[in-house]
């Protein structure tokens, strides 16, 4: 190694970031790990605050051993001083090899030679009429509330959407003693079965899914159409939906959690100059890398922020990205063949899932004009449709005309529905309307922070 060791920074301390750090540390490097969480673990293996007493088994179920292994390795290496952990820190911009990091309400600069982005994913949410009401959450929020705080988001919770997280959160809430009003899956049984060939790649996972389904009993309904949320001043009162037979139904609840699988968190990859391609299986734009996760320019991607393979895939992708980084630094590295093979298998499986539990394109296209599309600023579906009629079918132009995607969440929870609606107006596929360009800061910047820049 040369006199000054290379500065490698990992963003994200979930399964991908932790495994990447482990590989770098084993090679003798001392990476910096920046993470928004207070404790390393990421979302799916998120740890409750110190002083909470539920066991890993209670928190992570069948995945407890994996969660514990990740937490332990990170804590050990961190305690030994072999990495620099910067928790509660957000990277808000990347420019010319420098990260701009918001921590302790101050903005700091952190130059890097190599950057591994393991930024994870958030819920892929589709708007439904009434989703702007207080008491409507993302599915992930319902799980975080339970896991990290030991609370249910309401007295009677209705879950709706599609994907493995839907049934998982449903069974976790039931088990913890919450009142689950219904679990409404917009994917039809027939559609779910068509993904089965991919699911055969992970029979245990697939069987676990069916067992969870059984535990939900009559609460679980497949092939539903969500009509909207009925609410009063304090929040949801009921969800209106149509069952697979087309009958109108109304289920009372005081809380709704929505999610259709995941949306890769790619803002930083975008700012770091990665290129993107539209992935029709996932109905979203994903960054492009080589099989190891190399994006070029000293940037590497791993985990759900690159490919939505879940935590097992993220662990492997993290190792691979770190191995690629070591190779490019001219350092010896571990063998990658087994991880590459496993990752390819997980990719087939995940694509099967994506097709079995798809994005609800038809439901979004049929939204009434008055539905709120941007819940940050209250922009309606009709306003976006008008902007397309006026300015054409291009995502960035529609954004500047309608302000959809300009609010506090920076388009995280509206841009996929927005693209779907723009495409519907123009009679094309959502991949053809372009990709919203990421903009810094990717997190809101308190005015005071700029005064502490350094």
């Amino acid at each position, binding site marked *: 190694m040369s006199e000054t060791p290379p500065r490698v920074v990992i963003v994200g301390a979930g399964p991908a970031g932790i495994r990447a750090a482990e590989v770098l540390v084993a090679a003798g490097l001392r990476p910096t790990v920046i993470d928004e969480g207070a404790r390393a673990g990421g979302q799916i293996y998120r740890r409750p605050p110190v002083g909470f007493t539920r066991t890993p088994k209670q928190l992570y179920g069948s995945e407890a051993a994996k969660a514990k292994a990740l937490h332990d390795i990170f804590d050990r290496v961190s305690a030994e001083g072999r990495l620099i952990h910067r928790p509660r820190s957000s990277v808000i911009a990347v420019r010319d090899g420098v990260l701009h990091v918001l921590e302790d309400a101050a903005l700091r600069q952190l130059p890097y030679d190599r950057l591994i982005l393991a930024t994870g994913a958030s819920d892929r949410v589709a708007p439904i009429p009434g989703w702007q009401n207080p008491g409507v959450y993302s599915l992930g*929020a319902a799980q975080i509330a339970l896991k990290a705080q*030991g609370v249910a988001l309401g007295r009677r919770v209705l879950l709706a959407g599609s994907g493995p997280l839907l049934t998982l959160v449903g069974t976790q809430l039931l088990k913890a003693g919450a009142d689950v009003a219904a679990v409404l899956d917009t994917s039809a049984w027939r559609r779910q079965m068509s993904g089965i060939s991919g699911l055969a790649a992970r029979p245990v996972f697939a069987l676990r899914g069916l067992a969870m389904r059984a535990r939900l009993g009559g609460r679980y309904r497949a092939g539903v159409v969500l009509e909207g949320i009925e609410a009063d001043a304090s929040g949801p009162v009921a969800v209106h939906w149509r069952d697979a037979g087309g009958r109108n139904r109304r289920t009372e609840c*005081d809380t709704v959690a929505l999610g259709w699988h995941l949306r890769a968190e790619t803002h930083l990859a975008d700012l770091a100059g990665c290129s993107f391609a539209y992935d029709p299986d996932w109905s979203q734009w994903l960054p492009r890398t080589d099989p190891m996760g190399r994006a070029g320019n000293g940037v590497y991607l791993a985990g759900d922020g690159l490919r939505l393979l879940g935590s097992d895939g993220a662990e492997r992708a993290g190792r691979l990205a770190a191995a690629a980084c070591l190779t490019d630094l001219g350092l010896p590295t571990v063998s990658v063949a087994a991880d590459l093979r496993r990752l390819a298998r997980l990719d087939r499986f995940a694509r099967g899932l994506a097709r079995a539990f798809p994005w609800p394109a038809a439901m979004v296209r049929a939204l009434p004009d008055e539905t709120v599309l941007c819940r940050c600023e209250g922009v309606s579906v009709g306003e976006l449709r008008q902007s397309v009629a006026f300015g054409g079918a291009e995502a960035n132009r529609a954004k500047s005309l309608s302000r959809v995607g300009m609010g506090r*969440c920076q388009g995280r929870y509206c841009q996929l529905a927005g693209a779907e609606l723009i495409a519907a107006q123009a009679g094309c596929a959502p991949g053809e309307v372009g990709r919203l360009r990421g903009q810094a800061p990717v997190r809101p910047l308190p005015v005071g922070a700029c005064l502490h820049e350094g």
Partner: protein
Amino acid sequence: MNAAGRLVRLAEHDRAPVRFSLDGHASDALEGDTVLTAILLSAGAVRAPEFGTEPRAGFCLMGACQDCWVWQEDGPRLRACSTPIAEGLRLLTAPPENWP
């Protein structure tokens, strides 16, 4: 007052109490609660809306949507879902009077 709250505690009841105030009223939480949890155990929302008519109660709980920023009587705004509650915090669901 807890009857009006949105959230329901299901586990982890055994923690030290923390006192804070919400819109001038004394309120209790437990150590390790986030500001969001602390508020929503006794209230229906964390802040008044800036657009539209619906009050805000957070959405993602993972620091991604920025729906949950709350005011303090003094000091900077806080992202409620990622900030732990602390003894003596004086939180507001609407901007303080002197807000520009």
